[in-house]
């Protein structure tokens, strides 16, 4: 049996340095954000990098945090849905989501927004934003997501 050794890491989340004590640096970033830092906007959907509910930006790139070791996020800027309101691209995406009344249950939407903002930061605009978004929305808000990205 492995004896867990606690490690204290510093993570830069939404522009703020946060310390997190973990028993395993292999713990996925998702669960460090949710259970240790209390940032519950990032969601668990599948845990196997299919659904995208857990998407965050690391170094400006969309990553599925359910399969990203927290250790590998150390030293890199992390943006979660809670950080969108102070990011210009994030603000635009949020406004488009509201204008198009995208969310239903809303559970997948943090991931949908992060994938979208990641695409904006990679230089995509309008309809081209959709192409890398294969995130799952069981409520079926896809049509409105397609509308919402048109103006971005």
């Amino acid at each position, binding site marked *: 049996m492995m004896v867990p050794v606690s490690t204290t890491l510093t993570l830069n989340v939404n522009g703020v340095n946060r310390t997190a004590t973990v028993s395993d640096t292999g713990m996925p970033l998702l*669960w460090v954000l*949710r259970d240790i830092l209390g940032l519950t906007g990032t969601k668990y*959907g599948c845990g196997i990098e299919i659904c995208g509910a857990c998407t965050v930006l690391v170094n400006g790139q969309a990553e599925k945090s359910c399969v990203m070791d927290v250790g590998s996020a150390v030293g890199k800027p992390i943006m979660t849905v809670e950080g969108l309101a102070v990011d210009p691209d994030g603000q635009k995406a949020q406004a488009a989501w509201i204008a198009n009344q995208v969310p239903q249950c809303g559970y997948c939407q943090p991931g949908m927004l992060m994938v979208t903002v990641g695409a904006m930061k990679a230089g995509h605009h309008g309809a081209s934003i959709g192409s890398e978004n294969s995130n799952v929305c069981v409520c079926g808000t896809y*049509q409105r997501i397609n509308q919402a990205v048109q103006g971005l």
Partner: protein
Amino acid sequence: MSGSVDRRAVLTGAAATALVIPVAVVATRNAATLAVASTSGTATASTTQPPGAALGAYLQIDSANNVKLFIGPSEMGQGIMTGLGQLVAEELMLNWSQLSVEHATATAASPNPFANPMFGAQITGGSTSIRGWYIPLRTAAAKARDMLFAAAEAATPGGGWQLASGGKVTNGVTTFNFSDLVAAAAKLTPPSSVTLATTRNVIGKRLHRTDIPAKVDGSAVFGIDVQIPGMVFASVIHCPTSGGIVASMPSSQNGATLINLGDAVGVIATNTWSAMNAAQSLASAIKWTLPTNLASRDSVQILATAQSLLTSTTVTPRIYESVGGIDPAAALGQATTKIDATYNLPYLAHACMEVLNCTAVVTPTSAEIWAPTQGQAMCFPTIMGITGLPASAISVHTTYLGGGLGRKIEQDYISQAVKIAKQIGKPVKLVWSRKQDFQNDKYRPCASIRVQAGADAAGNITALLYRNVSPSINIQRNTTPGNNPEDTGAVAGAVGLPYAIANRRIEFVPNPADIPLGYWRSVGESYNTFAVESAIDELALAMGKDPVALRRSLLTSANPRLLGVLNAVDKLSGWSTTAPPKGSARGVAILSGFGSYIGLVAEISGSATSIRVNKMFCAIDCGVAINPDSIEAQVQGGIAHGLSAALWGQVTFASGIPNVTNFSNYRVLRRAEMPAVSVAIVPSTEAPGGVGETGVPCVAPAVANAFAKLTGVRVRTLPFFPGATMSDG
């Protein structure tokens, strides 16, 4: 109720100024607890509410004249907070920005003002929330209005009081904010009768949903997001074979505490990930006692049983409807055109985007849960049974639901969290892994349905013999005990058909399978409508008639609203006027259900092995449309849900072991596969109908009918593409 109220007041910091008097139409009660009704379901200490005075069970008005509406139905994506908010805003002439809407905390009040008026219990399901609350909530708001008038008159006699927009009462001379009057109004006796507003300034408008801002900035609190000081994290592992129970188990695993939950083992750790990992790693360490009859939990056996019951002449079917002077079997003998078709539909999983979870705090004197639940009414007996506490010591906080779909009416996950919290004496958040969620669902029943129908030479349908063989939710749950328990839900969508069919008999034969069953968005209609609307199409083709024209001829006088949506979707899709694009075909299906009427046309292209659903045209008559934008969203979502099920949805069992483990082998629709959905809402002044489920049932038959037209192949067994997988495309 003191214990839990005190605790909640401390946790939320909510100001408990509650002068509360009952004006609820559904019921009255001492609603002292409502003033501290938690809003978002979180117990995070930072939640602070401005002090507000309650006016009846549903309304609270703060000193800034903001109005808060407390509701009983659970917000699970359907927009019920907004829909009910619009009813109240109309009645009280509120500015939309002045109103906020929250889940009421469910307590033991009896009668419960938050009980669903259509069920008499606090349950969200059956697309009943708008239908049930349309009159009662407006009546409650109108009573509040009249009490505010009376308070204004007492303060400044003069008469002539009326509402002014923005939460004001005026008589032209004096004007009050509601907040000036609420304390006095709350002391008055509610009027026994009221006149409802006839204005339509808010009802019928595409107002923005009240819950969406919190759903784009991460602040919306779903059950899985609840945080309580000092809480521990738990997960579970169930027997891999459905129906198995724990025989023996280790007492701990990698330092995690284990708890025997009967049919599962609870694992407690310091975070969810560790708890899930420890649970998964227990698989071989726990010994399970398997159920004795594995054949009744095996898909091959279950289907074989169904096929023999479908044609059995010795079994006595339950006859749910028998219409006409001639035995349909005899009428079939006279028919000149006949079909005899058997449709098979699989077990389905709910796959709510948010896995099952519940947070619980149990003390010797109180129990409190925060849960994404559609079944508050059932949570009370669940918790009482485990804790031995009286109902008055129990509070149930409803969080946002990351999808409900019928699954979150169930009590299994609630009961587990309460058992764990009681045993360890600490607050606990229980979260299932996705695999546990898929493998321990209460599945949509499988169904095998045989339809025999015939028409005479003049083109009249003269016979319909319909036999549904499916496992019965009611029998499995013993909800209608007796020798011949009822399960009208099993034939919903097959009885009371709107079509002029002279002689018909609707039979149900329960399949004695033991796979756990539950209510899945659109319940019985989700399988019966596939059989009915496919069979009508098959009959039309056999008779050489256009499928829309045949339906129209069968509907004329009897059902103007269904005829209305059929005509509307005909027009919207260009069915009768414009040929579909080359390589495409259209299929139609219609339904009267959930108090509404819907017509759907699917336009698809492709081949027998691969199709693309390009467009969906939908006409819906749901009576008064409270928020057309929400209705369109529900139709779009219902179509997506129906398509996932029709194309790929299926759970099979090998001696009780389910084949699905995650979205990897339970494929659902993704963005690139979403058809363009056009919705026409047929104007109506009738009472509102249901919308949440209405969009689902017609999807599979419309697509199958289009597929038959496109390829000449009739799909009678769903899903279209069994065994589909999904990766991180």
